[in-house]
């Protein structure tokens, strides 16, 4: 018995010597600094994969949305690299049409899921608007998205960690990432022309282009019949929010549709 034990121990000692995996100890240390929720917002398969990439010098240290500036500074200090400041980004639902503001074209009584509802055209007259069946809310790892009583998805910017899972989930592609510091937003995604939008919704972009003239630096541009904010440019003025005849430009903290 003792002999067998000794022989096995010997085999294990040899195996430990020859098959040991040498991993950079920094990877574990860096991973420990990350939040560890594996949201995937950085573009890597979880926190330890991102840590490996940073140690190998393949990724910037400021990609972690949930960790924010604090984490990137800590990682930068540990790896001895420069941490450049990064805007905190939060998700923003570009639709403000809840039940009180939009027209429903039909009664949908299928699976309560946006992908399923979208596959049959949805029940809203607006074919770009939020369906409100909560696919994004279910994809959110931190429960930052609320589906209101009027069946509209709204992001709580204080909770949002900026991972972007909701952006990838929405079948109508109406969630976008916006800098936390910005306050002027066009809350509409409808590419339809004015008369069509007006029929479907009371808070839709009618493509009048007034906002593009009220902001500076071309911070709002027209994409067809839809006004789109360019978050890399500063609008310098909030006049567009008051003057918007479609009532779809709001002045608020990112993520909260008034």
């Amino acid at each position, binding site marked *: 018995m003792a002999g067998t034990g000794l022989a096995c121990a010997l085999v294990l000692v040899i195996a430990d010597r020859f098959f040991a995996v040498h991993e950079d100890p920094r990877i574990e240390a860096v991973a420990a600094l990350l939040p560890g929720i594996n949201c995937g917002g950085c573009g890597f398969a979880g926190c330890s994969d991102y840590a490996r990439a940073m140690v190998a010098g393949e990724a910037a240290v400021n990609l972690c949305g949930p960790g924010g500036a604090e984490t990137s500074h800590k990682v930068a200090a540990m790896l001895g690299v420069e941490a450049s400041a990064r805007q905190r980004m939060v998700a923003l639902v570009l639709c403000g049409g809840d039940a009180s503001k939009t027209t429903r*074209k*039909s009664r949908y*009584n*299928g*699976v309560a*899921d946006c*992908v*399923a509802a979208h*596959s*049959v*055209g*949805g*029940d809203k007259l607006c*074919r770009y608007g939020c369906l409100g069946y909560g696919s994004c809310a*279910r994809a959110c790892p931190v429960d930052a998205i609320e589906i209101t009583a009027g069946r509209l998805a709204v992001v709580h910017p204080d909770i949002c960690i900026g991972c972007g899972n909701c952006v990838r989930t929405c079948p109508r592609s109406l969630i976008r990432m916006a800098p936390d510091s910005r306050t002027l937003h066009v809350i509409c995604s409808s590419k339809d022309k004015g008369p069509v939008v007006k029929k479907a919704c009371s808070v839709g972009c009618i493509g009048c282009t007034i906002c593009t003239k009220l902001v500076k630096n071309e911070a709002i541009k027209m994409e067809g019949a839809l006004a789109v904010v360019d978050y890399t440019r500063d609008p310098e003025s909030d006049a567009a929010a008051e003057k918007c005849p479609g009532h779809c430009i709001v002045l608020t903290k990112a993520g909260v549709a008034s």
Partner: protein
Amino acid sequence: MSIVKAMFRAVGGVHPDYRKSATAQKAVREMPLPALLRVSTAQHLGAPSRPVAKKGDAVLRGARLAEPAGFISAAVHSPTSGVVKAIADAPTPTGATAPAIEIEPDGRDAWDPSIAPKPDWQTMSSKNLAALVVEAGIVGMGGAGFPTHVKLSPPPNKPIDTLILNGAECEPYLTADHRLMIERAEQVWAGAEIIRHILGAKTVRVAIEDNKPDAVRSMERAMAGAAGDVAIAVLKTSYPQGAEKQQIYGITGREVPTGGLPMDVGCVVENVGTALAIFDAIVNGRPLTERITTVTGSPVADPSNVLARVGTPYGDLVSFCGGTSGPVAKWISGGPMMGFAQHSLETPTTKTTSGLVALAPGDLTAFASTPCISCSRCVTACPMKLLPCELSQILEAEDYAAAEALNVLDCIECGCCAFECPSRRPLVQHMRRGKARAMARRRAEEAKKKGK
């Protein structure tokens, strides 16, 4: 020429009420031209066609309005002579929106001079005939709208020995194909002979369910002089007998492999309406611009089989049938098992609109769906031998990889599982969502491979 009973009993299936009596004995009526026709560019499976007509163009009937955008796509032709009013988005029966060419008829209904009849088709090669089918924009008229020329040009390593002409019409309410086989049997059979010539198929079977004995007699007369291994296969009535994979099994005993096509087992299935369209396209040189649609349901004042131009708004079809005599809870484009609920009657008909069914409030039951009780009725009903109960729970949990492993992509969306489910679970919807996700994943993977 003989009448045979289908040899094999198809797997699964259900027996919904036929509800065909309102229109089964009514002759097809031709509808006058509506004030405006909206011809959709998404009338078939595959890529929507590209409009070639421009606003303001004067067009004649049969002139090309849109060209196919790829191999799996189809051309679209003007259903009458008139002026192109606009090219604007219009709703499609599936709930989507697609560009449509709006035509205001001029009342002359004159054919385009390019129409070239080919009564001597026997002397033409398969390739030339298949090219004429492409030219005529013919798609499967049973409902799915698969471009017909794809079926008619099998690769050389997949020879076709059996052509099945599908006259099963297993959906409740619909009688369009039934009337077609009674009233235009000779032309349907002539179309079948053309398809047979193109494919070089030895055997032809005309599949008809045993609840349409008059159609069997009518087709029998039309096929009396036919040569070779030709027969009418009488199927025991059950749903979804009209689905091609089920029909092939019922008649030949061959099973189409998972992910495969009927041509993999040497078969091609064509709807009887498609056969007529091919006859019209080749012998008369006329592209596909009209079809028979059954407008029925208890609220419809005068349920009828209507021969209407492609692009006729549903509302006009209903007024032609006397409007409605009572409240309508639901309009369905197609049959009630696989059709699509409509939110507006502005939607125009397409080449695949086999029916428009109105359901009264009493025809519908509102129900709440409850958890699966594992009774396995859906498993017994599934004609594709899938496990809808398990798949629906997997899909509820959004585990798309597991659903793909259980062959969710084989689902034909016939609705038998949901029809049988005592818990009233929305099984087909779960399947549709699962299929959409699985296809999206496959496409992403292919794109990735191409990128690398």
